[in-house]
């Protein structure tokens, strides 16, 4: 058992796979000697050399395209987008190519590729560097999407993502990079398995990314009021572990979904709609979604923190629900 930061855990996941499999390699903007904008790849250039840890020009389309072309021809690339916001620049390669080629070609090619992308707000990086874009990519058949919230999950999901034979979008939260946690094992976490971060019996909170931590904080606050919250982190947004959600719901009959995205059209809505549709009879109350306000992320610290949900919002929503 080791203490590790989230960033270290992601790096460790990549390193383990790179050591075992010479076909695994990394590229992206400034991921080489510089170690990546958030330092996630620090040291890997020294360990594995320029061939396997490559700086690219600023060409996100070419980065994702290179992942596709190399994955289709026998390699297992890990591409980094410096911010998830730059998805927009490589969106065609991701959505119309990576996600669809296998299907369009009748299953004739396989694309084992991972695209890493830091998302989320909290560092006053403003509207073009703070988004949570999971809704777009979970909507696209052909992509898998994971989003770890702890070092242990980051390591396990990275191993799972690299082993996966499909394009896996690996979302990271930039505020979590420096968060430390215990890493008990180096086993891959299979995609599609949720984790109950805290058991409880009164209400189910489904939270992703940094919001898992806010949900846990909220659950502590609520304990004082005698409210026992169960916190589920899906970890894998697609495939989604519906069973774990359903089991929890059978116990609590109440659900709050917390994501950092703009609420309108967010992935939280998908979870909410799915639950209503499939488990309506188990619901004692409407599924409540908590998300960011429907604004671009503002720069000013006071505005930014106002837009993003936090533990108080979760506490309030749960109190109202119960």
């Amino acid at each position, binding site marked *: 058992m080791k203490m590790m930061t989230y960033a270290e855990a992601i790096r460790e996941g990549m390193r383990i796979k790179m050591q075992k499999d010479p076909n695994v390699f990394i590229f992206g903007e400034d991921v080489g000697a510089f170690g990546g904008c958030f330092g996630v790849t620090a040291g890997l250039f020294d360990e594995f050399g320029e061939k396997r840890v490559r700086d690219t020009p600023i060409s996100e389309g070419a980065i994702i395209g290179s992942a596709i*072309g190399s994955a289709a021809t026998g390699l297992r690339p890990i591409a980094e987008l410096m911010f998830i916001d730059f998805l927009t620049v490589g969106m065609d390669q991701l959505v119309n190519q990576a996600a669809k080629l296998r299907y369009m070609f009748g299953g004739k090619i396989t694309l084992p590729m991972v695209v890493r992308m830091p998302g989320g707000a909290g560092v006053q990086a403003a509207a073009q560097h703070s988004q949570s874009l999971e809704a777009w990519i979970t909507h696209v058949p052909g992509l898998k999407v994971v989003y770890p919230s702890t070092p242990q999950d980051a390591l396990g999901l990275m191993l799972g993502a690299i082993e996966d034979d499909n394009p896996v979008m690996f979302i990271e939260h930039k505020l979590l990079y420096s968060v430390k946690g215990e890493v008990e094992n180096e086993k891959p976490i299979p995609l599609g398995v949720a984790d109950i971060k805290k058991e409880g019996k009164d209400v189910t909170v489904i939270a992703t990314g940094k919001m898992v931590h806010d949900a846990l904080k909220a659950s502590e606050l609520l304990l004082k009021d005698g409210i026992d919250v169960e916190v589920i982190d899906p970890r894998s947004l697609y495939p989604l572990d519906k069973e774990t959600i359903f089991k929890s719901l059978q116990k609590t009959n109440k659900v709050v979904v917390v994501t950092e995205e703009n609420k309108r059209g967010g992935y939280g809505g998908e979870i909410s709609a799915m639950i209503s549709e499939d488990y309506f009879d188990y619901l004692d109350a409407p599924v409540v979604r908590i998300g960011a306000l429907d604004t671009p992320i503002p720069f000013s610290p006071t505005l930014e923190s106002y837009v993003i949900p936090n533990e108080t919002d979760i506490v309030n929503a749960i109190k109202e629900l119960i």
Partner: protein
Amino acid sequence: MKLSNSKIVDMYKTMIRIRKFETQAMNLFAQGSIPGFVHLYLGEEAVATGVCENLKDDDYITSTHRGHGHIVAKGGDLKYMMAELYGKETGYCKGKGGSMHIADATKGILGANGIVGAGHNIAVGAGLSIQYRETDQVCVCFFGDASTNQGTFHEALNLASVWKLPVVFVCENNLYGISVNQSRHQAIKDISDRAVAYNMPGITVDGNDVFAVYEATNEAIKRARDKKGPTLIECKTYRHRGHFEGDPGAYKPEKEQNEWLKKDPIPRIEKYMIDKKIVTNNKLEDLKKEVDKEINEAVEFANNSSYPSLESVVEDIYTDIKEEVRVR
């Protein structure tokens, strides 16, 4: 460059296989057997043929919406191609892709592509893979004149040149992007001029001269296999038909069309072969009949094949997950 007679005949045969496949597809589309969008390669046969004659089975190509010619030239099977155009389960893509998405990984065909400019960066990825795996393969990226205004063109050529990847970029300049003449979509005449921006060789050749195309590509491929990096080759050619079937091509001036018809690459190579006594007229007829037979078989194969089962619709999205066909 001296080409053996048998190689010349091979090239000719590839050209008429494309010509006849496309002519048949044109007719089948007109009579309603082929649905969707069909972009024919008629008139441009010398490009795919001259290029692919240089390639081995394990070399890669990326193709475009106008991909049939590339796929035939790279060794695609006409039966599976035709069945795919029909949307049958025996098609290359089990009916899921259609004309714009034919691929054959066993022949290094990384797919036709319906997004203009999307193949460029995939080709770069294949080139990166070749370099990484240290094989002597090469990847050829086919694309049209109008696609060279797409940002992906630029990103791909830049990356290939700075990493010295074994990619050969082959531009099929047929003078138009749909209805827009080259003079209205870019301010240059020779697209090979764009190579300067990447410090790579840029060459313009007569794309209706299969030998010129062969030669230019041969050199570029050698360069690529020698780890000297990419080349941009522009082949000036012309499409005989509209952009897709159904487009009458009213924007193409008649005079221009007539001039280009005179440069049709197929009569041209035929005349060459007859003049140089490489084949007799009878041999030509035999070759054509052979190809006709192959095409007929392909059509029959497609006709006799079934449409895919409805269950198959949820397969091939992922390697491991089969989507539920649940209440929508």
